[in-house]
């Protein structure tokens, strides 16, 4: 082999693509209540502040992303595995610029976000349940004690009044029983609190990683 034929030095290898959990910077202003439960593989990321209130439960592989605005998780919010809270992906200026929160997400007290659900809504009211695989589009305002049933899709910028059940292919009805009986609402919140207690017993807590 002559010197002229030596191959060009190998190109620098492309840096391995980062894992989803480390792709985003750790939020500069992350406030986590010490009573929250953050499981081992849960991820909180994004350039905007994230506030995690008391008794919040983040299951393994739950994702909270403040990519386009701050995220506020109210007291006793449960985010199940593979669920995502926060506006995802690239934002087309108009769709998010229109709303006041600027891509932020406010999740009310006692909200339950089940497996694989994606919540990009501007606001989710107290006691609402988003079942497995449900999607709430960006800019939505979801009322109190709503149920977004499994795999239902709520299109962006929709307003959903209190006690609504979204089911089937975009159908809606009002849960009048729950609406008229305050004791049932209280019961629901109580049961949710008990559920959180059980989670605290069963799931190893890794909240220390996200504190301070």
């Amino acid at each position: 082999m002559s010197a002229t034929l030596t191959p060009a030095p190998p190109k620098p290898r492309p840096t391995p693509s980062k894992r989803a959990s480390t792709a985003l910077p750790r939020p500069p202003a992350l406030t986590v209540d010490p009573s929250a439960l953050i499981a081992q593989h849960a991820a909180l990321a994004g350039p905007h502040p994230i506030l995690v209130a008391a008794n919040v439960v983040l299951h393994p592989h739950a994702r909270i992303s403040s990519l386009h605005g701050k995220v506020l998780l109210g007291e006793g919010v449960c985010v199940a595995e593979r669920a995502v809270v926060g506006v995802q992906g690239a934002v087309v200026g108009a769709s998010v610029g229109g709303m006041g929160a600027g891509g932020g997400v406010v999740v009310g007290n006692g909200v339950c976000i089940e497996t694989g659900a994606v919540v990009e809504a501007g606001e989710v009211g107290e006691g609402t349940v988003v079942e497995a695989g449900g999607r709430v589009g960006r800019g939505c305002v979801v009322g109190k004690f709503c149920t977004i049933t499994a795999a239902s899709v709520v299109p962006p910028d929709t307003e959903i009044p209190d006690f609504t059940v979204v089911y089937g292919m975009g159908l809606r009805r009002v849960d009048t029983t729950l609406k008229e009986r305050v004791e049932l609402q209280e019961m629901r919140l109580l049961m949710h609190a008990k559920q959180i207690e059980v989670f605290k017993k069963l799931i190893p807590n890794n909240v220390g990683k996200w504190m301070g």
Partner: protein
Amino acid sequence: MSRPTTRRPAPKGEYIETDSGNKVSRRAAITGTANITLGGRTVIQSDVHLRGDLHPTRAMPSSTSSSKPEAPPTSISIGRCTVISTGCVIKPPSRVSRGAVHYYPMKIGDNVFVGPGSTISAISISSHVHIGENVVIQPFAIVKENVKILSNTIIPSHMVIPSGSVVAGRPARVVGEVGEGWGVSAGGSSSGGLGSVGGGAGAPWVEGGDLRELVRAIK
């Protein structure tokens, strides 16, 4: 060289194979492994979440009387030759009983195929069940034997699916029966039942049939 040269390092494949022939992907997210039993020759593909940590907390009547060390409670038990495809979440169901939340052990039978992206919280799934893609089975549903669940179905909680039915829809309804050919390989019979369409002509396995060949093919 302190290490004996005859010992070769185990090949680093996608799956970890256990003594009983279970194949568990290295990229599966499994919590609470002590509470999960796999029957043997069962495949857990990548990105599957098995929530074994959500185990029953209630003291069993048998364990309270005996003084022997307590066995870990079972939360998920899966039978033989069952395939759990990519992106599934298997989560035991919970409910309120006597004023407290309890998790209940869930059981999945033999030769069950769970399609990609499904979320399973059923209390029991019997044998020879075929579950399509992106199916959601809500807590405490019971799926009996020889059932076919079409893709994107949502099975509401507490639904009992009788054996031999085909279910689909949101919420799920029984839309038909699997018929005679269910689980019989296409080569063996030419019956026109829904089941015989299974893995396509010439495939070594059919929906609802013996999945041993499929399990063997996954590497």
